């Protein structure tokens, strides 16, 4: 089964059984492909005596902890075929994930993302305001997660501006001019949750006091990157929505969940506030004690599978995030597939021992 065949399936159209059949076929193929082409991956599968012939569902396939991509350079294509290396945005000194993309995988990531996001924004391109600074995407050889997100979403923008300058200051005049120019059109806004809060929302509040307001009621905001920093400021999901509406009239807001290790297969938040798995990927929650699959409603460690990766063995990954599957095929928004929420990161282990603990190991 080729990815092009899968790509022709509307993103939220398959029920559980059909999706399982399709994903199992594709993911078993990918497992065998990577076993042939990535020696490190083959050694991992050998160490657990994995036999693809005994697999009945993609849920039985091995999953690699995402941290392996920080420790090892895993690729399934010759070095010359790599066109992009994506990295996770770790803080200084931390190891970063390195994800190797060839032309096909890179292009499939982009096509997949267009399919998914169009379901929420419509398929035509829109004037786009990127709530970040332009320098994030400067170095095109090494893509950080932030840069990759911006570039990924940029394909939905007809005309684009960056709302922030390189000092993370809101460029009021440029945004005003942009909004004036595209008055009456649907505007796409994109950024990372915390950046939006810190450098956009807070600035809008301040400007409001000076009598400067923006009307973004016709816009649609897509944001991602997690809630950790906002939760530390005691801002909940609902609070974020309410405050954005108060500040600039934005009501069309979609969070998304995704990671650099599986770019393309993002999980968009629907009108009901649920993150959705498309047909191109899936989320499985696993019990920490034995990695068995959780029931719907039971919190577990998030495993993600994606039908895209051909150039690196990242089609089945165990994240360090926790979450809950809320339901499958029955979200009131009408989309099929699983819908879920994320509950944040697994805590680092607190362990005893004779050697002093310094900064966390990873």
């Amino acid at each position, binding site marked *: 089964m080729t990815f092009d065949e899968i790509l022709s399936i509307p993103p939220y159209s398959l029920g559980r059984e059909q999706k399982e059949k399709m994903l199992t076929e594709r993911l078993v193929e990918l497992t065998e492909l990577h076993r042939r082409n990535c020696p490190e991956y083959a050694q991992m599968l050998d*160490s657990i005596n994995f036999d693809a012939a005994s697999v009945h569902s993609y849920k039985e396939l091995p999953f690699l902890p995402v*941290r392996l991509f920080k420790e090892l350079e895993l690729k399934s294509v010759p070095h010359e075929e790599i066109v992009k290396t994506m990295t996770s945005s770790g803080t200084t000194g931390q190891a970063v994930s390195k994800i190797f993309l060839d032309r096909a995988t890179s292009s499939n990531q982009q096509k997949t993302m267009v399919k998914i996001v169009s379901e929420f924004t419509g398929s035509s391109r829109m004037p786009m305001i990127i709530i970040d600074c332009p320098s994030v995407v400067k170095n095109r050889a090494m893509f950080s997660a932030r840069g990759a997100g911006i570039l990924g979403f940029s394909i939905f923008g007809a005309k684009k501006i960056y709302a922030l300058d390189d000092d993370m200051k809101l460029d009021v005049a440029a945004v005003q001019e942009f909004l004036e120019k595209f008055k009456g059109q649907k505007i796409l806004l994109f950024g990372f949750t915390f950046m939006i809060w810190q450098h956009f929302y807070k600035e809008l509040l301040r400007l409001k006091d000076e009598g400067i307001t923006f009307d973004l009621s016709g816009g649609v905001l897509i944001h991602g990157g997690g809630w950790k920093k906002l939760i530390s400021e005691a801002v909940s999901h609902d609070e974020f929505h309410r405050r954005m509406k108060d500040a600039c009239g934005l009501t069309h807001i979609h969070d998304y969940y995704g990671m650099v290790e599986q770019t393309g297969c993002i999980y968009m938040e629907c009108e009901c506030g649920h993150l959705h798995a498309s047909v191109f990927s899936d989320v499985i929650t696993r019990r920490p*004690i034995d990695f068995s699959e959780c029931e719907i409603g039971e919190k577990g460690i998030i495993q993600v599978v994606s039908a895209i990766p051909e150039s690196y063995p990242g089609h089945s990954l*165990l994240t360090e995030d926790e979450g809950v599957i809320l339901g499958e095929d029955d979200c009131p928004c009408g989309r099929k597939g699983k819908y879920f929420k994320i509950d944040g990161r697994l805590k680092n282990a607190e*362990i005893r021992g*004779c050697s002093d603990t310094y900064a966390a190991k990873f």
Partner: protein
Amino acid sequence: MQLNSDVLNRVEFLTGNAELASQLPCVPAMVPFDDRIVSFLNDVSKELLKDRAAKAFSDVVTFAFWIRKASVIRLKERFEAKDNALHLGKGVAFHIAPSNVPVNFAYSMVAGLLNGNANVVRVPSKDFPQVTMIVKAVNKALAAHKEMKPYVLLARYGRNKEINDLFSSVADVRIVWGGDRTIAELRNSPLPPRAGEITFADRYSLAVIDSDTYLTITDKARVAEDFYNDTFFSDQNACTSPRVIVWTGSKIEEAKRIFWDKEHKLVSQKYTFQSIQGVNKLTSSYLIAVAEPGVKVQQHEDNLIVRVSVPAVNEKLMDYRDNSGYFFEYDCKDILDIRALCDDKKCQTIAYIGDSHVLLPLILSGVKGIDRVVPMGKTMDFDLIWDGYNLPALLTRTVVMA
């Protein structure tokens, strides 16, 4: 000589005070196992053993028994020098205790004290209940043993070079726990020319189990408890915790099956599993699979115990070690097969089931590691000979009177 009081005022003293600390260089050294020391420690022991809260902490109870008079007298008999020379404490012992082992600071202090030294000990910054209990008992006992006050200073402060500099400048011996990085940090604080230093570096340990002997043991539940205490009790992350299990003898498969089955039952009942540990062990097992072709991850019903069979053992294996129930296993035909692992200076303890004498050819081959060979269950039992060091010899001065 008086110590800089500006710096001392930044130290939180749990026992003693800045005034006593400033007098450290003037405190007379004592003769090892002086009656005043023995009597004081016996009172600390009494205080601990009558503390109801302490009963829940086996490490505190073990410590309390270790410093009882009867136990200390046995140590005295073993370690009192019989060389017709005079022995005195070196003077001031400055101890840096590890941050994440609650009672280690107390053992270090007692080692310094029994050998006649005045001690200043940096205790763990983390608020362990065990630290609170022991400090309380020490302070109560000191109230009745005022003459001992200059000898016991328990201090709490963060990673602070100025304070380390100050205490190092008056130390006659510095005792550094906490592993390689802490040792490196302390090496930035100069010691006086004649001062000595005892460093407890990063180490690892292993177990050697003779399958035939194991199968003859009737109380296998006891063995499971012993192994638990050697490993899971300290999250298998103490320097003494076995990381590699070396199996010998003729019934390895059968012994393994029973051993791990019993251990798993015990761990399921006793161990507090943390969600990330399963992810860590999976990561570690895949990393070793990539580094060492031929390793096999043993099937496991859950993530409490993860075992990786390795086709060979060498010191490289330890770059891939993990903790909290993650074991490398090796089926051993000839004990010299594990020589490369034991020739590493980081190799510390061998816990054994069977006849320890089978290890003699290995040790006598001239390995640079292996400082302790102890029965399973005894890896954490502290002794004045520890980590390859004869502490009484290093903590005292020998006065020759010809």
